[in-house]
Structures are given as structure tokens and as C-alpha cells.
């Protein structure tokens, strides 16, 4: 009803209601696209920002790891910003005049609900396999990119369990199928928290990608933009050689699939709360993240391929 508080954490139902509200308020710009459902049959809803036609597109997702609550909150704030400032903000207007934007605020809805109702520290999906005691798969180890390689666990009880096979998680498969069927994504950005990192491929191997120099330059620029607001410092680099080795990750899959501009954000860390970042930090986190996103999306818009 228009009084949604973007500066607090919300349940999945509240987030979905607000997504519907954003669509209702901006029918010519924003629509809801259902790309599938989760293991427990919750809808996977994407907000599509489009001024019409079939334009090249940018993909943004948040909250693939359920407990990283500031990411879902940041995504929703971002959705509202884009919707309300189209036609007023020069960058948003020019971006959406040239490209479409798809934003998935809650990539792991089952995990998100579970983190609200049962275990605030839950990270994985909620999939079950008969005869297996432990529940869930780390959905950011489940993509078809060096699947089951280093930096992922083969133990079902581990928080970084890669799952029985690539794309075994319906949440991951839904995104993969959607991106393949769309066929014209030019950028893939995933939002995580916390550690203040901006990463690009590769994670499953430690060799440089063919476009290392370009991705590094784009990421460095974006990190500077993030820092410009509140002085939040990010470290920048490929997942493996600069940060840690992790196989089966989404941006590696996107990059190998041909989406050159693939990045992963790890949002802010106060050094004290981790995933329990107080709600009063949502707004500054979202605001500074927007500057980084804008920097990347500006580059993507101006460097078509």
C-alpha cells in the first residue's frame, strides 16, 4: 500500500507483496516474470524492467545464500529505485532505453523462509534426497562450471555441498533455463554478503580469463564508486587467485556460457555482525552498492559485444 519500509528486514511474503506493488505502480516499465519454482514449490519471481522491444539484457540476482539477508533487502531497494527514478535519473533512463534489466531479489526462497522460521544461519537450498540425512545443497556450488571441483564439498551435511549433479537444484536450473531461452544477456551480476569483495571469473580454476584485464578494470572502477559514498573498501579480483577457490559458481558458468561481464559482489561487513548485519545498515549498504552496480552497468551499456 505504499508504506513499505525498505530499511528493515522482511519475510518472503512481504517481499513478494512489495514486488507486486512495484509492478502495479509502474505497469509500463516493470513486470513480474515467473521463471519456475523452488524445491518446496515457492515461485521464483523476477522483476523485468523494460521499455519495450527485445533489447540486450542485464541479469541481477540476490540471496542465493539464504542467510545473507542484506542482499535480498538491497535488491528490493534497488528495484524500487530503478522503478521510481526511470524518467528522472539520467543513467537509469538511458540504460533502460537501451537494455532490459532482470532482477531476482530472492534466488533461494525456501532457504530464505527457513532462515526466518527455523535456522537464521541457513545457507543452502532445502532439497531432499531419499536416504540422505542432511538437507540442502549449496546453490552456488551447483552450476555447471568445474562442477564438484576444488572448493566444494562432496559431503551432503557440509554447508558447501555441491549436490548430486550440476543443476540438480531446481532454483539453479530455473535460472539457467531462463538465461538460455532468453539468449541475449550481456551481463550477469550476483549479490552476496559479507566480506566486501568484487569478484570476476574464475573460481573453479586459478588461470586468468581471456578478458582478465578488462574485467579487472571494470571491477576496480566499480569498487572505487562503492567506496566514494561511505569509504567502504572492497577488494577486487578473480575468485580463485585473489580470494578463494570455489567450483560450480554462477559467474563462472555465466562467463563460460558467453556472458562476458560476469561479477559477484560480497556486500559490506562491519567486522562484527556478519550475516546478522543490523537493519539500520541496509540503506547505506544498498546506496553504496547501487554506485558499484551503476558503474558496471554503465560500462556494459557503452561496450556492446
Amino acid at each position, binding site marked *: 500500500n505504499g508504506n513499505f519500509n525498505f530499511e528493515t528486514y522482511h519475510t518472503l511474503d512481504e517481499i513478494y507483496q512489495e514486488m507486486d506493488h512495484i509492478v502495479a505502480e509502474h505497469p509500463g516499465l516493470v513486470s513480474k516474470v515467473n521463471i519456475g519454482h523452488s524445491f518446496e514449490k515457492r515461485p521464483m519471481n523476477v522483476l523485468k524492467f523494460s521499455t519495450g522491444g527485445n533489447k540486450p539484457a542485464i541479469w541481477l540476482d540476490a540471496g542465493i545464500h539464504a542467510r545473507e539477508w542484506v542482499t535480498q533487502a538491497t535488491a528490493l531497494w534497488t528495484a524500487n529505485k530503478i522503478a521510481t527514478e526511470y524518467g528522472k535519473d539520467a543513467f537509469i533512463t538511458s540504460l533502460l532505453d537501451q537494455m532490459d534489466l532482470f532482477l531476482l531479489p530472492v534466488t533461494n526462497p525456501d532457504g530464505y523462509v527457513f532462515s526466518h*522460521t527455523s*535456522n537464521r544461519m541457513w545457507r543452502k537450498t532445502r532439497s531432499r534426497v531419499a536416504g540422505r540425512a542432511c538437507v540442502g545443497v549449496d546453490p552456488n556450488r551447483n552450476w555447471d562450471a568445474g562442477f564438484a571441483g576444488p572448493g566444494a564439498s562432496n559431503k551432503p551435511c557440509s554447508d558447501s555441498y555441491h549436490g548430486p549433479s550440476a543443476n540438480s537444484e531446481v532454483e539453479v536450473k530455473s535460472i539457467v533455463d531462463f538465461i538460455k531461452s532468453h539468449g541475449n544477456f550481456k551481463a550477469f551480476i550476483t549479490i552476496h554478503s559479507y566480506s566486501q569483495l568484487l569478484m570476476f571469473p574464475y573460481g573453479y580454476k586459478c588461470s586468468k580469463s581471456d578478458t582478465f584485464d578488462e574485467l579487472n578494470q571494470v571491477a576496480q572502477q566499480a569498487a572505487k564508486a562503492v567506496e566514494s559514498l561511505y569509504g567502504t573498501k572492497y577488494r577486487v579480483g578473480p575468485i580463485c587467485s585473489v580470494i578463494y577457490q570455489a567450483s560450480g559458481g554462477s559467474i563462472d558458468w555465466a562467463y563460460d556460457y558467453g556472458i562476458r561481464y560476469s561479477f559477484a559482489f560480497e556486500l559490506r561487513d562491519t567486522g562484527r555482525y556478519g550475516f546478522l548485519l543490523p537493519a539500520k545498515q541496509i540503506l547505506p549498504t544498498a546506496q553504496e552498492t547501487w554506485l558499484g552496480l551503476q558503474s558496471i552497468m554503465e560500462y556494459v551499456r557503452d561496450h556492446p559485444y
Partner: protein
Amino acid sequence: RETFVGDQVLEVTPKNEDQIKNLLELEAEEDLQLDFWKSPTTSGETVHVRVPFVSLQAVKVFLELQGIDYSIMIEDVQALLDEEKEEMLLNQRER
């Protein structure tokens, strides 16, 4: 609903490769039920690990024996969770 009364989050700073190896061994100990928020990577890089109350003593003794520096990042995880829940309820009432 799972509770986390008495669980702590430790910030651990390994000084060298040996200490990273020690922490990786600790991570593999499933009985301790440790939840690594930030896993061991390189020396000097902080590690954040939630330690269930029942494993606190064992983990602290292990770190001290190995000479690995650590500090307590979150004293009581459940206390923070309670604050978070209260804040959400308050916000729902306001709406």
C-alpha cells in the same frame, strides 16, 4: 526453531600456512558442528567461525595450543537474533 544460545562467532587470524592447515583440519571436524562464515584462505586474512556453545571450550583450547590468534566477534549469537526478531516485529506493528 533452532536456537543459538551461548554460541559465539570467533574472528581468527592465522599467521602462516601451518596455521591455515590447522584451521582447515578444524573445519573438517564435523563433530564440532562449526559454521565457517569466512573460511581460511591466506595468512593474515581473518576467518570468521560460529562455534556452538558445546564446542567452544574445545575450539578455544585448540586455537590456544596452536598459538593461533583469535578474538570474540559475537559474544552470544542468540542475543543478536533476539534483537533482530524484535526489530522485525516492531516494524510489522508499525506497518
